[in-house]
């Protein structure tokens, strides 16, 4: 499959004002590449949710994006506390976000469900005390 571009970002921890910079940049680059707008929207939303999760729970992390002619792969890796129960975390409405995060409008328990909703494939590797990596794929229509 033809690879068009690879992107890497450091996602800063504990800074909600900078969360979204990576997904915003990816959105711009995908536009430049002429990717379908619906596909770009899915990637941008799924990635932003992942960035927010890393800021809330893991003091930041890294985001890697690979764009091919057939799909866009996103890998979000952190060295946070890990997810004790992935199935529970995937449940809409379940949240462990603290109060101050909820006051900003996040922590509705929609992060991982939205990431699943907007991607064609999602896989989560997590280990308690070690970290979490979320792999997502959005197929290009």
């Amino acid at each position, binding site marked *: 499959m033809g690879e068009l571009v690879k992107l890497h970002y450091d996602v800063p921890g504990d800074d909600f004002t900078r969360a*979204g910079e990576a997904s915003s940049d990816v*959105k711009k680059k995908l536009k430049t590449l002429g990717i379908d*707008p619906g596909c770009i929207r899915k990637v*941008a*939303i799924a990635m*932003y949710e992942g960035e927010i999760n890393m800021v809330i729970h893991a003091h930041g992390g890294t985001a890697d994006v690979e764009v091919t002619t057939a799909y866009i792969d996103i890998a979000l890796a952190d060295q946070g506390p890990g997810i004790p129960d992935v199935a529970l975390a995937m449940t809409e409405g379940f949240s462990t976000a603290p109060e101050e995060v909820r006051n*900003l*409008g*996040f922590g509705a*328990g929609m992060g991982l469900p939205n990431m699943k909703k907007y991607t064609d494939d999602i896989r989560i590797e997590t280990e308690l005390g070690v970290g979490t990596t979320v792999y997502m794929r959005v197929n290009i229509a």
Partner: protein
Amino acid sequence: MDNVLFSTADLADCAGIEPVCCGQEREVTGIYCCDLLSMVMGRAQEGDLWITVMGNVNAIAVAALADVACIVVAEGAVLDEEARTKAQQQGINVYCTELPVYQTAMAVTALAAGGA
């Protein structure tokens, strides 16, 4: 093809809804009210007019990523300086109003019906 309700420029006809940051004029194809940002990302549609009380920088990021036509910050909530700067940089249309969320929704619904 989504049904176009009105253009963001038409909001000038809505008494009490004031422009704060004007990017590119957009067609409004739906109306959505919510303050939980993840819910907005999950459920707002591209081209929606989004009514919220969230006037922070994250709301601007969500508006950009969800590709809504504009934000209307209701209930007298304030668009903070950082958010205003971000909105200008990203060309996001933002309006503010003292009207409650429900009244704001009613006003834009009336506009969509041609009765503003």
